[in-house]
């Protein structure tokens, strides 16, 4: 066991999807999905239920919970994940709260992110994981922010936020997209020099190089064939090597849908229809790639995985073969996760336990089985993360 390699961490990730799209609606769940389909009564019920599911994860011994940001869609009802994180900061006492992430280019001025993240870090006593993301393609339609500026705005916003946390204010920031004469963030974060930073991505080379350069952690976004994750993580390892260090497993996160029931047959019986609601009703529209959002060289790379995107899935056999969701009895789930964790080598497992229309009782039972029967075994199998050699990176 090499010195400094830390234990694998388990997170429960929630998308907070809208479960009530009517059967006769066959349009996209993004950008143009009519908001007349949103029932605020359902909203009241599911927001509270979904928060309960995240709070349950703390009781079950998870290391952290994850929320994320999406706009104007039925796939994930968290236009402000920071609101959810601030509730969780009060209602939990131990877990890390990972906001994965704030879509930086959508904030103007981005000092808002520095301020809100610092608030959450203060309220939670230093439990925030600060996720920063370029934002999905649909967000650029929903916000009218120019996708051709996405990468530049992300970089500038990131620089502003990090400096706001680490440099004495006030200071001036004059960039191409943001021109702020006074940056002077009150409050400042509890974690020093700043909270751990995660960046989610789907294999864009620019993003991976940015993460490697800054020694942040890269979260592989799900719904692709396992081969795509393997390639992304390989890219991340190589990018870190080019920066002159070996990746720390904690710099890698694998996000995957997980469902546990008493037996394999029971798991599939309870889960499959909800998985298909997710794939066929909530994913359509997520894959829209606005012009200029990705460089041509990255686009070519992303395209290599595009055919394996879950939206193209037709059969349950394909779901299983590609590891799109890990579904089964506690033994099966343990076995398949062990195998895939060994193959990918991440130090963070981000389980998506609720998905699509999966009801509250099945979600709760699955979380409980995972917490009591799967997680302890995986902790024993991976007592100190993946055996990656070399000096661990300082995960900031």
């Amino acid at each position, binding site marked *: 066991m090499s010195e400094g390699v830390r234990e694998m961490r388990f997170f429960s990730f929630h998308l907070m999807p809208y479960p009530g799209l009517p059967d006769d609606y066959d349009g996209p769940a993004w950008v143009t999905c009519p908001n007349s389909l949103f029932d605020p009564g359902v909203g009241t019920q599911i927001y509270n239920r979904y928060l309960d599911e995240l709070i349950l994860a703390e009781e079950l011994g998870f290391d952290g919970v994850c929320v994320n940001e999406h706009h104007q869609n039925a796939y994930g009802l968290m236009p402000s994940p920071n609101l959810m994180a601030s509730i969780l900061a009060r209602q939990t006492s131990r877990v890390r709260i990972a906001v994965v992430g704030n879509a930086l280019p959508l904030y103007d001025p981005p000092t808002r992110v520095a301020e809100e993240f610092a608030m959450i870090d203060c309220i939670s006593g230093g439990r925030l994981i600060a996720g920063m993301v370029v934002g999905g393609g649909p967000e650029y339609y929903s916000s*009218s*922010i*120019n996708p*051709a500026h996405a990468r530049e705005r992300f970089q500038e916003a990131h620089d502003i936020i990090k400096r706001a946390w680490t440099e004495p204010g006030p200071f001036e920031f004059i960039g191409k997209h943001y021109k702020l004469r006074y940056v002077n963030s009150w409050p400042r974060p509890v974690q020093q020099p700043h909270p751990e930073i995660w960046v989610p991505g789907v294999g864009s080379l620019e993003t991976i190089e940015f993460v490697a350069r800054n020694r942040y952690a890269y979260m592989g976004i799900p719904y692709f064939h396992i081969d795509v994750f393997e390639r992304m993580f390989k890219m991340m390892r190589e990018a870190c090597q080019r920066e002159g260090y070996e990746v720390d497993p904690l710099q890698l996160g694998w996000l995957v849908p997980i469902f546990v029931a008493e037996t394999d047959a029971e798991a599939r019986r309870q889960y499959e229809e909800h998985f298909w609601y997710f794939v066929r009703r909530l994913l359509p529209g997520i894959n829209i*790639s*606005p*012009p*200029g959002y990705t460089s*041509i060289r990255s686009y070519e790379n992303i*395209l290599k995985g595009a055919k394996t995107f879950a939206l193209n899935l037709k059969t349950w056999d394909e779901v299983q073969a590609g590891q799109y969701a890990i579904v089964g009895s506690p033994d099966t789930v343990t076995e398949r996760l062990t195998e895939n964790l060994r193959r990918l080598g991440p130090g963070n497992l981000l389980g998506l336990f609720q998905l699509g229309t999966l009801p509250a009782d099945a979600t709760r039972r699955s979380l409980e089985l995972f917490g009591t029967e799967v997680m302890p075994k995986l902790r024993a199998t991976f007592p100190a993360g993946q055996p990656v050699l070399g000096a661990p990176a300082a995960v900031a």
Partner: protein
Amino acid sequence: MGASLVDERLVTEIGAVQIFRGGTGDPVVYLHSAMGEGAGTLFLEDLAEERAVVAPVFPGFGASEGIESIEDMEDAVFHLLDVFDRLGLSSPAVVGLSLGGWMAAELAVRYPDRVGRLVLVNPAGLYLPGAEIKELFGRPLRELAQDMFADQSHPMAQMMSQLDIMAASEVEIPFEVLRPLLQSMAATAKLAWDPYLHDPKLARRLHRVSSPTLIVRGAQDTLVPRAHAEAYASGISRARLVEVDDAAHLLPLEKPDELVGLLRAHLAA
């Protein structure tokens, strides 16, 4: 029959750009649309039989460099001025399609004496409440082809539909086929994402255009509503509007002969 155009390079302030040139006579500058049409465009070759055709490829399109230095229409206009100066074009006739028509109008309101006769074909550039330009970005190509061509049997319309069918199937589309399309759309987004395909200040500046102006509209263009052609025609004092039947947004590709006829008459008048 037509004079074929030569693919040249011109070094500009912001990088080397590609220019298609051919023919002799009074110069006509052609500013392409978001499709980046240039070489092999029949109507340009026909026009080159009697005029010196100059078709600069805008930065970000084709092999033209410099899109990093272009943020908005202001930058586009200064780039065009640079190209004009380097080619010794003092006040050439300017023809622009769609995005190129918008660019031509932006040039003409700022530097009216640098534009001889002006021809705007299905120009973008204005915002008219109730007659908005349809979405160009992120739509299925076969759907876009409906707005672009009156006749869906046009080879380009067919190609757009085929690409869509391929994308939805297991067939791998060679990246070299997609690359020009991705580049063109990315460059267009820089100029036209927000505000969407218009400049809020353009309408009240149109009175500055002094050139005799021909507005050409494809009668079946469903991307840019007719009201836009009318607004240009009424905003520019010496403008005339002509509608071409059986043509949609990409009128120069669909009705090259008719367009050359109209240009010939307008440029000679």
